[in-house]
């Protein structure tokens, strides 16, 4: 049957070629779309994790209710509030940063952790001023947890430890202030006190928001500026698997009342957006593959119709219904496998080319994941085989005697 199936394929070159092209582009298209989208999502995901680690631990900011203050004033007395307490509890600082550091060192799923002190303040130089995100980091531990150090295009993160009042500022912020390395800029703390600091490095992540507002200093420098000696606002943790960060965060949250949040919990909107993108891609691909499958179904169905007399003679000379099914199924299988292989090549070549396209600030992101290629191949070949099965089954059902009678 194999030889006959091959002969049938080559005898109808145009029809076979159309089926082959359909399958090849179905497979190639799946690979290209999925690789680009996955590459872009991975890029965004990496940026999120790079800057903020897998898990952050900070003080919990609960809403305050009258019950929150029970027992604090006039113990044992009934209190009638003129204005009920409301708003959020402002625990800006982690009360148990030291305890966390010691605990995290012992946990097997924690790779590294680092402390941070963060605040929103103002930065100025001459008559220019801008709101900034001031971040005090540990120059030794920060690179173990995030990739911030890699985004420093001039100077080094370690330079922050060489003395007080040294900062690394975002490239866009420095442009705005008209400052460069070794210049002095002023940071104004929330109480309005001005602290002059020296720029020892430039930070450029490609994320405009960060590049316009981020100022990095050592923890001591930032604590001095914020006039909060010994205070820490956040601990950033790197775990053994970013994809299991939520599970690890849940475990960590059992140790303290502090707020423990994984990167994906903190970016629910981003993840729902990526899920929506994936869903749109899947629907598009499903529609495309459905069209390809219908094409295969139609071509094979037509072939079964055209080959009725030959099916009749095959059956009369001893070929079974199963042989006839196999004859048409083999055609579908051969075309879909050949088309799938060509699709893999198309996908690979197209992705290689797309990766060379330069976008502002970065190249096109393409995911090189073997599973994408495997899925593309399996999905398209399976669909093509299913589409071939119905005409093949119909061929098997044909009664030789009815065909002979019809053609007499």
């Amino acid at each position, binding site marked *: 049957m194999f030889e006959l199936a091959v*002969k049938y394929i080559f*005898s109808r070159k145009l029809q076979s070629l159309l089926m082959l092209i359909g399958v090849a582009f179905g497979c190639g298209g799946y690979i290209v779309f999925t690789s680009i989208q996955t590459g872009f999502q991975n890029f965004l995901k990496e940026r999120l994790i790079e800057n903020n680690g897998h898990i952050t631990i900070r003080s919990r900011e609960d809403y305050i209710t009258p019950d929150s203050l029970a027992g604090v004033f006039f113990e044992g007395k009934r209190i009638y509030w003129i204005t009920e307490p409301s708003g959020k509890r402002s625990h800006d600082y982690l009360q148990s940063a030291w305890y966390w550091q010691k605990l995290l060192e012992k946990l097997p799923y924690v790779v590294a952790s680092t402390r941070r002190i963060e605040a929103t303040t103002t930065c100025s130089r001459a008559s220019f001023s801008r709101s900034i995100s001031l971040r005090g980091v540990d120059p030794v531990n920060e690179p173990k947890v995030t990739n911030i150090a890699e985004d420093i295009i001039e100077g080094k993160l370690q330079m922050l430890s060489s003395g007080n009042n040294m900062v690394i500022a975002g490239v866009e912020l420095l442009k705005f202030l008209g400052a460069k390395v070794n210049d002095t800029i002023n940071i104004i703390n929330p109480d309005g006190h001005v602290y002059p600091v020296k720029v020892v490095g430039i930070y450029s992540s490609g994320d405009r928001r960060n590049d316009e507002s981020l100022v990095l200093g050592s923890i001591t420098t930032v604590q001095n500026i914020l006039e909060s000696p010994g205070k820490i606002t956040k601990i950033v943790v790197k775990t053994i698997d970013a994809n299991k960060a939520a599970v690890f965060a849940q475990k960590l949250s059992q140790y303290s009342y502090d707020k423990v949040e994984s990167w994906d919990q903190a970016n629910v909107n981003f993840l729902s957006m990526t899920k929506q993108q994936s869903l749109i891609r899947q629907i598009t691909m499903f529609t495309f593959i459905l069209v390809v499958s219908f094409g295969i179904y139609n071509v094979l169905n037509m072939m079964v119709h055209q080959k009725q007399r030959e099916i009749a003679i095959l059956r*009369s*000379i001893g070929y079974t*219904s199963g042989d006839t099914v196999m004859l048409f199924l083999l055609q579908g299988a051969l075309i879909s496998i050949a088309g799938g292989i060509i699709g893999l090549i198309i996908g690979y070549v197209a992705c290689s080319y797309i990766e060379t396209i330069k976008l502002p600030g970065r190249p096109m992101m393409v995911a090189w994941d073997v599973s994408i290629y495997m899925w593309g191949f399996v999905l398209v070949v399976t669909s093509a085989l299913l589409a071939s099965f119905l005409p093949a089954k119909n061929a098997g059902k044909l009664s030789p*005697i009815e065909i*002979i009678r019809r*053609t007499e």
Partner: protein
Amino acid sequence: MVAIEASNVVKSFGDFTALKKITLKIRKGEFVAITGKSGSGKSTLFYSLSGLDIIDSGHVLVLGKNIHNLSQDDLHDFRNTKMGFVFQFHYLVSELTGLENILLPAKKNNLHKQKLDYALYLLDYFAIVHCKDKLPSQMSGGERQRVAVARSLIMSPEIIFADEPTGNLDSINSEIVMKIFREINRKNKTTVILITHDDEYAHLADREIRLKDGEIESDVYYKKM
């Protein structure tokens, strides 16, 4: 020795009864022509005797086997090894060459390599060697039918069923094909069941069974067996 034994075979299509309790015996090596006018039931009898069609009642023994009781796999195997078929329309596979078409029944059981020499002999015997590598579309009607006859013989069947094999041929090619059947019958002692409406060709057979309205009208022996 009996090749085919049919007993009270009935076949109906709705209200129309095509075969009315047909009973007959065909001996091995016999060349039997089944004749009759259009609608007399000769083709229906042909399909019933060969197991291509099911019957409503009665039974048909072919080489001692009740073919209507065989499983589908056994019936296909039986047809492949014991029977050869030639139809009015050649029904060659258009993608296969003359030689490949002849070897098609042998290919079913992977016997095509063993049967290659015999296929070449048949090509030579039927004077169609030049059709060996030709596709059916490159052959004449007579050549195609001779390839179809060669295909029916490749498994050295004991019975050849031929349904109007000359119905689509000119007189010269018809005579060639009929001559071939006669020779196959005489040389190999192969039983030949020939359906024809042509009295001239019917007389080439050893025996003529004439049907009328689904019944045997006459059963005449032209040659004493």
